[in-house]
C-alpha cells in the first residue's frame, strides 16, 4: 500500500441474493484515495456507488456479500483489511464513525425524530472520545459552531423537525466530523437541497476539509457538484469503474462513451443551445445474469461487435493518472492478453 493513500479498494465484488438469483451489484472495483484529496464517485442510480461506500464501513445488509480487499491505514490497528473484520466486532467499531464517517443522502431521514440534535451528535463523542457528558457537550457545541450553526446552545436542545433542510445537513456534517475522521464518505450530500443551500454546504465541506485535513469520498450523480468539489473522478457503470482521471481531465477530455454521454447530457449554461441534448439510449440494466462482454455494450454508440460483447474490458492507463476500460478507445486486441475471456 502506497503511503500517500488513506484507503485502497482492491477488486471489490458485492453479490446480493434475491429471489430471482444472485445480483452482481459490484463487479471488481479498484480505487484508492490519497491523503487530503477528494475523490468523486459518479454514476447513475443502480450502478453500485452506495453499496461500495457502505462496504467500506461494513454497514451493508446481511444479504450483500462483499469480496475483495479494502485496505485502510487505521490508528490503533495499523494497516488493516476492513473486509476481514467482523462487521459487528470491536475493531470495526473503532474505525466506523471515528476514523471513517459518513454523511447520508437525506438529512430528514438520517436523524431520528425522537432525540434532540445535540443528543445525536453526542452519541459518537461519548462512544469514541470521552465518557464525560459535560465534555462531550462542549465538543459537540464546538463542532456545531464550526459548521455554521448559529445559536448552537439553543439548537443543541432542539429536535430535527425544528431545523430546515440546509441546517439539518449542517448538523449531519457536524455529527460526521465530531471525531475528526481521516476519511469522510459523503453519499449525495446535497441532492435534496436547493442550489443556494447546496452551494453553501459544498463550500463548507471544502473549508472543513482544509481545517481537518481529511480525505473525502464524494458520491453523486450530479456532474456539476463534482466539478466544484473533486480532485479526481471515478465513473462507475453497472458495478464497475469505467474511467478514472483528474477532474479537469475528465471534463476536458472524456474518453469512455459513457462518460461522454453523461457529460453531454448535462446542458452547460452559456453555451449555444444545441438542437437536442446528447442522450444515452436505454436504461441501466439489472445486474442479473449479465451477458458476457462490456456492461455498457447495449447502450454504447461506439460498440464493436464481436469484441465488446465477447470480452470484458479492464482498466488500462491511457495518460497521466487517466485510466479507462473500453476497447473502442484503447484499441481492440483480437487476442487480449490480460483480459479474461468471459465465455460461458
Amino acid at each position, binding site marked *: 500500500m502506497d503511503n500517500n493513500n488513506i484507503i485502497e479498494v482492491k477488486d471489490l465484488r458485492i453479490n446480493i441474493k434475491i429471489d430471482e438469483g444472485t445480483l452482481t451489484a459490484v463487479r471488481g472495483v479498484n480505487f484508492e484515495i490519497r491523503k487530503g484529496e477528494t475523490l468523486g464517485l459518479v454514476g*447513475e*442510480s443502480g450502478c453500485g456507488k452506495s453499496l461500495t461506500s457502505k462496504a467500506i464501513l461494513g454497514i451493508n445488509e446481511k444479504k450483500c456479500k462483499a469480496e475483495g480487499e479494502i485496505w485502510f491505514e487505521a490508528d490503533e490497528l495499523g494497516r488493516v483489511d476492513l473486509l476481514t473484520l467482523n462487521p459487528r466486532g470491536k475493531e470495526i467499531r473503532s474505525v466506523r464513525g471515528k476514523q471513517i464517517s459518513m454523511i447520508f443522502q437525506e438529512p430528514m431521514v438520517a436523524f431520528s425524530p425522537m432525540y434532540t440534535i445535540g443528543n445525536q451528535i453526542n452519541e459518537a463523542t461519548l462512544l469514541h472520545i470521552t465518557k464525560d457528558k459535560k465534555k462531550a457537550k462542549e465538543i459537540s457545541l464546538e463542532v456545531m459552531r464550526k459548521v455554521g450553526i448559529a445559536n448552537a446552545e439553543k439548537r443543541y436542545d432542539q429536535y430535527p423537525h425544528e431545523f*430546515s*433542510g*440546509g*441546517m439539518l445537513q449542517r448538523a449531519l456534517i457536524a455529527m460526521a466530523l465530531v471525531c475528526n475522521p481521516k476519511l469522510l464518505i459523503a453519499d449525495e450530500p446535497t441532492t435534496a437541497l*436547493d*442550489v*443556494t*443551500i*447546496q*452551494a*453553501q454546504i*459544498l*463550500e463548507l465541506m471544502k473549508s472543513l476539509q482544509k481545517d481537518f485535513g481529511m480525505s473525502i469520498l464524494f458520491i453523486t*450523480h*450530479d*456532474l*456539476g*457538484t*463534482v*466539478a*466544484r468539489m*473533486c480532485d479526481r473522478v471515478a465513473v462507475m457503470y453497472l458495478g464497475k469503474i469505467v474511467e478514472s482521471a483528474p*477532474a*479537469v481531465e475528465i*471534463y*476536458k477530455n472524456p474518453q469512455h462513451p459513457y462518460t461522454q*454521454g*453523461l*457529460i*453531454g*447530457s*448535462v*446542458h*452547460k*449554461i*452559456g*453555451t*449555444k*443551445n444545441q438542437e*437536442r*441534448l*446528447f*442522450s*444515452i*439510449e436505454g*436504461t441501466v440494466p439489472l445486474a442479473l445474469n449479465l451477458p458476457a462482454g462490456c456492461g455498457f455494450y447495449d447502450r454504447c454508440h461506439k460498440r464493436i461487435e464481436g469484441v465488446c460483447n465477447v470480452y470484458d474490458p479492464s482498466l488500462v492507463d491511457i495518460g497521466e493518472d487517466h485510466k479507462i476500460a473500453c476497447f473502442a478507445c484503447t484499441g481492440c486486441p483480437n487476442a487480449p492478453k490480460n483480459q479474461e475471456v468471459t465465455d460461458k
Partner: protein
Amino acid sequence: MSESKKILDVQNIHMRFNSKGICVRAVTDVSFTVNEGETIGIVGESGCGKTTLGRCIVRAYEPSEGTVLYTAANGEVIDFLRIDKKTMKEYRKEIQMIFQDPYSSLDPRMTVLDIIKEPILANYPKMPKAEVEKKVMDIAAKVGLNTTYLKRYPHAFSGGQRQRIGIARALVLNPRVIVCDEAVSALDVSIQAQVINLLHDLQKEFNLTYLFISHDLSVVEYISDKVGVMYLGKLVEYAPTKALFSKPLHPYTESLLSAVPVADPTVQNERIPLEGEIPNPANPPTGCYFHTRCRYCTETCKQEAPAYVELEPDHFVACHRARELKLRGFSYDE
C-alpha cells in the same frame, strides 16, 4: 416567435392559505403572459410558491384573487378562473399537468393502460372502446413506451419510463398547454436528457406550450424561451432566457445564478452568498420581500415594495435599484 399569439394571460394571481388563523401568502400578485408554442420556465428555491402557481393556473387550487385569461383553440378568450365547473371541464382538456414524482403520481393499482385511458373515459365517456384503445396505443408509442407492456402495473417500470407514462397521460387529450411541475427532477441525468428531448420533439409536433417549473437552472435555461424567477410568492423577474441569464436585473437572480454548479472544473465562478434563510411567508418582511438577504439593500427597500415594471423590452423586474445596479450573469459564447 414574433407572430405567435398570446395563449395565457395571468393577471395578479394571489393565493392565500388560511390555517388556524394564520394566513400564508403562497403566491402574491403574479402576472405574466405566455405565447403559444413557447416554453416558460419558473425557477426559485423550495417554498417560493412555484408549484402553487402552477396549480393555480390549472385550477387545481382556487386562487384567492386574480384572473387567468386563456385563448381557447376556437379563438375565444375565457377567464379560466371564473367559468363554472361544467364549462371548465370543456377547457381543462386543453390544459394538462405533468407531476413531479413519477413514483407517487401513478396509482399502483391501475395498469398503465388504465392510467393513460382515464382522462379519455372521464371526458369522452361515449367514445367507442376500440377508438380509446387506439388512441392510448398511439400516444404510448409516441412517448416511447413499449406498447406490449401496457397491461402491466407502474411498479414494473423504471423512473424514466414512469415519467413517460405521466407524459402520455397528459398528452392523451391533445392539450395545448402543459404545466410540467419538476417533470425531470427525480430522474438520472441520462434519462433526464431523454425526457427533455422527448418534450422538445412533442412541442414541435403539436405546437405545445409548456410552463416548466423547476429548481434546476441549467435544465430551465436549456428548455425555456422565457424564465420567471420567484421569491417568497412573488415574481421578481421575468425575461427572455438569454437576457435573464446573461444580464440579470434582480439581485436575487444574480445570487441564484452564481450558485449554479457548472459541469466544468476550470470554471470557478465566485458565489454571491445569500445570508440567512427564506423568511416565513406567513409573516413576510416589510418593503421588498428580499431586502433581508439583499446585499444592495437601502432604506427605501426596507419600507416600500418595489413595483414590477418592464425595464427593458420584455424584461420585467421588481427592484428599486434595478436601473443602477450592474449585476453579474453568465457570459455567452457565440
